[in-house]
């Protein structure tokens, strides 16, 4: 974006920087250690390993949906939308509300599927409109402000949404009904839960749809143009404000889908879920290369996998260290490869 070239982007490399060689050695050492850890765990108990992996990928699909929202917004206005995780949290609450209050469905039935689909549509509309409103009311006014201002605003928004969640859901965890079929398929000792299949069945088409919107449609082209050069996009007749609003809408919709899927597969809601999962999803976005949509998906699945393995295998650090493991990955990537696995160099953006 030509109108926001930060001085930092053109700043020289610091002298504190490890030599390129040292950095590479460090990176490969870490990769090798991760690989060794995977192999040891696999050989130790393949079934446990694979079960953990399947569970992880299922989570990863949700992370991918949330990560996409971060990535889309970052790609277009270079804002880390802290409130995005909390939007997802509101999505889980709204889904639970629709399914219980409106349908009162408890068991799997034809009505359950209807409830599920209606909830899907409504939660998409709900989250999309909240996200667009936040952009309209807060971020838009700060588009030319120093970078700290929108970032702090996003943090503030996150707290406001958490407040809504707190009032809505109460301060404790609440269990929510699932209308999806329960059960699992046993594949040689590896359990594949039905919910996992449903997550994939919803997530994959939605990711396809996203890709189609961004690459093929008029709006998608305008989005990419706006992300690359706002002024040039204006000169093409693109209404940049509307495009940014649309992007927030799509990001919100994806958070809504993720919210419903989480509510249905995990079955519980908490008001502070957004912070925790949002940060994990953000790490996923960074891991994949923030701004890159396939990167967000890849990052989501990888983080889910890492989390699943960390919590599920014998030599894993266990759930109580999950947050630390995820953040260590975030920090390592920020320091060694800020462009992520599939990201484009920020320099090109200037």
């Amino acid at each position, binding site marked *: 974006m*030509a*109108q926001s*070239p*930060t*001085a*930092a*982007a*053109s*700043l*020289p*490399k*610091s*002298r*504190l*920087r490890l030599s390129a060689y040292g950095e590479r050695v460090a990176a490969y050492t870490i990769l090798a250690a991760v690989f060794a850890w995977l192999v040891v765990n696999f050989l130790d108990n393949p079934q446990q390993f694979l079960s953990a992996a399947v569970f992880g990928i299922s989570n990863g699909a949700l992370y991918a949906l949330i990560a996409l929202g971060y990535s889309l917004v970052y790609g277009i206005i*270079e*804002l*880390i939308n802290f409130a995005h995780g909390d939007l997802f949290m509101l999505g889980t609450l709204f889904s639970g509300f629709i399914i219980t209050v409106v349908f009162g469905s408890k068991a799997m039935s034809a009505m359950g599927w209807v409830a599920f689909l209606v909830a899907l549509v409504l939660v998409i509309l709900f989250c999309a409109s909240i996200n667009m409103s936040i952009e309209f009311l*807060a971020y838009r*006014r*700060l588009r*030319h*402000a120093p*970078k*700290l*201002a929108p*970032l*702090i*605003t996003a*943090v*503030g*928004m*996150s*707290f*406001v*949404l*958490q*407040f809504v969640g*707190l*009032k809505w859901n109460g*301060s404790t965890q609440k269990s929510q009904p699932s209308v999806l079929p329960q059960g699992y398929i046993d594949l040689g000792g590896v359990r594949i839960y039905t919910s996992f299949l449903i997550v994939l069945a919803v997530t994959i088409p939605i990711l396809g749809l996203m890709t189609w919107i961004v690459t093929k449609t008029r709006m998608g082209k305008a989005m990419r143009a706006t992300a690359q050069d706002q002024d040039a996009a204006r000169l093409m007749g693109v209404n940049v404000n509307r495009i940014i609003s649309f992007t927030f809408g799509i990001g919100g919709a994806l958070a809504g889908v993720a919210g419903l899927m989480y509510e249905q597969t995990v079955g519980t809601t908490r008001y502070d879920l957004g*912070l925790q999962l949002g*940060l994990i999803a*953000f790490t996923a976005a*960074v891991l994949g290369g923030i701004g890159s949509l396939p990167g967000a998906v890849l990052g989501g699945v990888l983080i889910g996998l890492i989390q699943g393995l960390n919590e599920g295998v014998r030599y894993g650090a266990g759930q*109580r*260290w999950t*947050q*630390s493991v995820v*953040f*260590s990955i*975030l*920090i390592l990537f*920020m*320091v060694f490869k*800020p462009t992520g696995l599939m990201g484009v160099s*920020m*320099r*090109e953006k*200037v």
Partner: protein
Amino acid sequence: MAQPNFAVPVPQRPQNVDRTKRSWPIGFAIAAVVIFIFYSFILPYLTPDIRTVVQHWMPLGTINTALIWAMSALGLNIVVGYAGLLDLGYVAFWALGGYAAAWLMSYFVPVSAINILGNAAPGTKTGLHLNILLVLIGAAAFCALFGVIIGAPTLRLRSDYLALVTLGFGEIIPQIFKNGDDFFGHNISNGTQSIGPIDAVEGVTARTTVVAGVAQHTDVGWGDLLAFDHSGRFIMFTLLTALIIFISLRIRQGRLGRAWLAIREDELAASAMGVPLMRAKLAAYAVGAVAGGICGVAYALQLNRMLPDPFTFSVSITLLAMVVLGGMGNVWGVLVGALLIAWFNSTGLPEIGDTVNGTFGTNIDFPSYSFLIFGGTLVIMMLFRREGLLPERRTRLVLHEGAAGDTQAEEPDEELVDQAGAVK
């Protein structure tokens, strides 16, 4: 340049700078003395009605807690307000300082008791027992070191990435303490069991003898500060806060403070003027962390034990709200912002809630509104009064420009146009 230069009379520094320089510290000192005298010598002799009101709305313990928050907020102000580096994990330094105190002045460290001018409780067989001054220095140094360790690999990141990495450290470090009963097989923090009690500190005690509900006389002495000796802790915390304020103000006037301001204003120009960016930024982290460390020690003393649970992300955000509300970069503004929010958080909001509920017969859970209040504060301040309630004199100027800046497009950055053209 056209005119030859005649000897220009050396201009005087503007007077108002000096005036604000003096009035705030004097006000702070007077307030401290008044509070001490009031709570130690006046309050116990007032009628029970008044005492109840004061104990409800503004107990001395709350003031002490507010001072602890203020210390951290002032430290964060050095990082965010002075140097312009957003730190979303400042809570880590608070925790590190607190645990440093817990290690240095309790039974916890598994060695036979080592007492260095310390004040070990009778019968304590193990642990380090250092004098509080040594503990403060130790905790400050420990946090400064961590400030550099955290800062070194992260400071070359873009500002928003930097915020996230600090957030990451802010989550990891408390989690290490939380799971610290088994950190690679070692017990470093007792985990959620907490470390305590911590050695009492000696200080001024002002104890009032009460007979049948009537205060008789107040004795001022020197001795171990017990749980109810709020006056002594008040003196100590006031002095520590004053120390941090003093450091903040002094450092701002000096070479380093100028470098931070310059970096905040324009990194590229600062580096072209010979300011070493990385060293200056690391110094900001280290000095900011020192304040966090001192705050952690104070917290450990106030609580008499150290436990990992309070160190959450929302602490970092509350601190940020204090800095933003008070006015980033203005020490006195941040002090006021911190005291205000801390009071509001711990006493004000529940009390207002009780009053409202009592008056109108409602049943609203006011403390649960703190999320809305802090989040809302951040958003509203950013949208409408970015420079805070008591802005720094410098940033107040920005306000006078008003909306003029918004209608004008930004200046094209020729510096980068050349490059952009080449990249594409």
